[in-house]
């Protein structure tokens, strides 16, 4: 018992335990779903849950599928990089539940029941009495969702890497894989940790989706939906507290200006006696002197090294940060001092295209932009995004297929209310959390995709509850998984139902269909 407590007391093992529990629950739900599957009409149950989803299952699977890795990785990154204007960027979600579910939901469900359609191509082909329409929709779904799958797989693997970074069995495995893949084309140049996490993540998702089908996806979505809400609910008050209050955060953001991109060299007073490596993300400070009226703060965007016998690095990419007093308090002093003996020489500077030396840019529209002279969100783009979020959600195949699966109209109307509240408590709080992150964790503009797990770690460290990091990181992990499993099922249903059963073997028997489904998915 003592040893167990000792193990659980370290943050890394807490993260591992959290992840293990999470995966175990997901697998258990898939197993339960598989048991249900054996008792029902196979294709209708496997791909559509027998059109019997109740309010909670329907609402949570709809919401969780929409909230992808982008919601918990890309979106926080955007808030961190561009400030309050990202609230306008995502504002279309205020009306998404009504449009995406209410506009077509009742009709899609009714037509699917009338025609017996269990996939979107099924529905379109029957509705328009056109085989060409059905085939076109299959091609569109398989082609475009495959690209989306890649980003979800990558997102899941990156989160898993962050979660397991300090776990010793994982580090041993990384070293082993590095030895195994050394010299193998393509694999050898890939990050071995990424390869391990990609394999584990892929296996987990494919196994539970294959075994349990649509119902497994829905049940895990429900759980993942609650995990996401819990993650945001825990992070919101703690982030505001760590930043010193929302008022103080916004005031501080008003004084911030976006960083410059720089190229710099680092040099030592003497030639190095051994190789000196400066990791990516290292803080560097050029102290105040007669030449420089005030201190300058840099953060590297790539690894650099001073080779043995040399005294300087090659020019490397970095950002120069203009920190407010509140942000300065949160610069990790230990890291900042580690390379203080090196002299920083700025070779070139590139200012952001919009917002350079312009206080207030993080709290007004269109927001700072490194590459666009019109800023992050010109008004025309804000209008476009409002339309895009709303109507693209109505036409998103994984959303449409869920509209074929709810039990009755009353379920749909209650689910719309639930999803509306769900989006409100997810997206707007995320804007607040990651505005606070600008104060709490300065200097992540160069690696802003990492801000979600970093913020989770910072919060759990601040309240001395390391196990919480695992729970908070499970939120984006759940978001990725819930989207990925739905896309996998969409693609497999397009292939099995619309290509194999419709075109090749219309009289597919149950005993064979089960095997065929799994065989086709694994190809």
């Amino acid at each position, binding site marked *: 018992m003592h040893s167990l407590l000792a193990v659980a007391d370290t943050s890394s093992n807490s993260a591992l335990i959290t992840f293990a529990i999470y995966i175990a629950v997901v697998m258990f739900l898939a197993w339960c779903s598989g048991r249900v599957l054996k008792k029902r009409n196979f294709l209708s149950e496997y791909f559509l849950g027998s059109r019997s989803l109740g309010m909670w299952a329907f609402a949570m699977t709809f919401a969780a599928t929409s909230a992808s890795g982008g919601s918990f990785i890309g979106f926080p990154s955007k808030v961190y990089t561009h400030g309050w204007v990202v609230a306008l960027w995502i504002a279309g979600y205020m009306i998404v539940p009504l449009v995406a579910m209410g506009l077509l939901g009742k009709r899609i469900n009714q037509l699917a029941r009338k025609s017996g359609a269990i996939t979107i191509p099924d529905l379109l082909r029957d509705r328009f*009495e056109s085989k060409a329409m059905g085939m076109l929709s299959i091609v569109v779904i398989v082609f475009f969702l495959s690209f989306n799958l890649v980003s979800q797989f990558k997102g899941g693997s990156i989160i898993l890497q962050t979660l397991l970074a300090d776990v010793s069995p994982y580090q041993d495995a990384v070293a082993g894989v590095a030895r195994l893949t050394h010299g193998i084309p393509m694999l050898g140049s890939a990050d071995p940790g990424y390869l391990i996490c990609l394999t584990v993540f892929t296996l987990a998702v494919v196994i539970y989706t294959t075994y349990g089908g649509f119902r497994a996806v829905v049940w895990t979505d429900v759980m993942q939906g609650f995990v996401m809400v819990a993650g945001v609910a825990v992070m919101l008050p703690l982030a505001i507290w760590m930043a010193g*209050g929302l008022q103080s955060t916004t005031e501080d953001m008003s004084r911030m200006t976006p960083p410059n991109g720089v190229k710099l060299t680092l040099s030592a007073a003497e030639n190095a006696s051994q190789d000196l490596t400066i990791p990516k993300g290292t803080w560097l400070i050029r102290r105040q002197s007669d030449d420089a009226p005030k201190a300058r703060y840099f953060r590297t965007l790539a690894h650099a090294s001073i080779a043995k016998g040399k005294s300087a690095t090659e020019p490397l990419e970095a950002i120069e940060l203009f920190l407010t007093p509140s942000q300065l308090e949160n610069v990790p002093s230990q890291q900042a001092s580690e390379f203080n003996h090196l002299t920083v020489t700025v070779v070139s500077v590139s200012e952001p295209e919009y917002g350079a030396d312009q206080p207030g840019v993080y709290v007004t529209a269109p927001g700072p932009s490194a590459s666009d002279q019109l800023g992050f969100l010109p008004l025309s783009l804000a209008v476009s995004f409002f339309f895009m979020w709303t109507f693209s959600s109505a036409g998103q195949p994984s959303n449409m297929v869920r509209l074929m699966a709810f039990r009755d*109209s009353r379920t749909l109307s209650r689910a719309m*209310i639930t999803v509306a509240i769900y989006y409100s408590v997810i997206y707007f709080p995320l804007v607040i959390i990651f505005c606070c992150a600008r104060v709490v964790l300065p200097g992540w503009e160069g690696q802003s995709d990492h801000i979600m797990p970093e913020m989770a770690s910072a919060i759990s460290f601040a309240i001395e509850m390391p196990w919480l990091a695992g729970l908070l990181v499970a939120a984006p992990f759940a978001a990725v998984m819930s989207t990925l499993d739905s896309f996998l099922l969409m693609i497999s249903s397009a292939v099995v139902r619309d290509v194999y059963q419709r075109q090749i073997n219309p009289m597919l028997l149950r005993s064979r269909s089960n095997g065929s489904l799994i065989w086709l998915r694994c190809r």
Partner: protein
Amino acid sequence: MSASDLNTPADSTEPIIWDPVFLHARREALVIVLIFTACLAWTIGWCWWDGYNVAVDADAMVPMVFGMPRWVFWGIGVPWLVADVVTIWFCVRLYRADDLSDGEEDPLAEASDA
């Protein structure tokens, strides 16, 4: 299934009998589009007026409400809240609980269970 959901009569002189689910869905769709337009107009209109190209004062401060920039609170936060209330009203008062159950199971799906 026929290409449309009209219960098309054999004799073209007979009046068309529309599916009530279709009629309700069409009416609801119209209301949803109106609500969407109102949200779009409020959000974009307010943010354009109060959020774009705003001159910050000497202390680089913008007007704030509850710790948020004023344009975010009135242009995004409040309409989001109102949109939620309208969604609840729409679902409770306006959305018709139509009977969607119909038809038979797809023959191909049946075959797979044979």
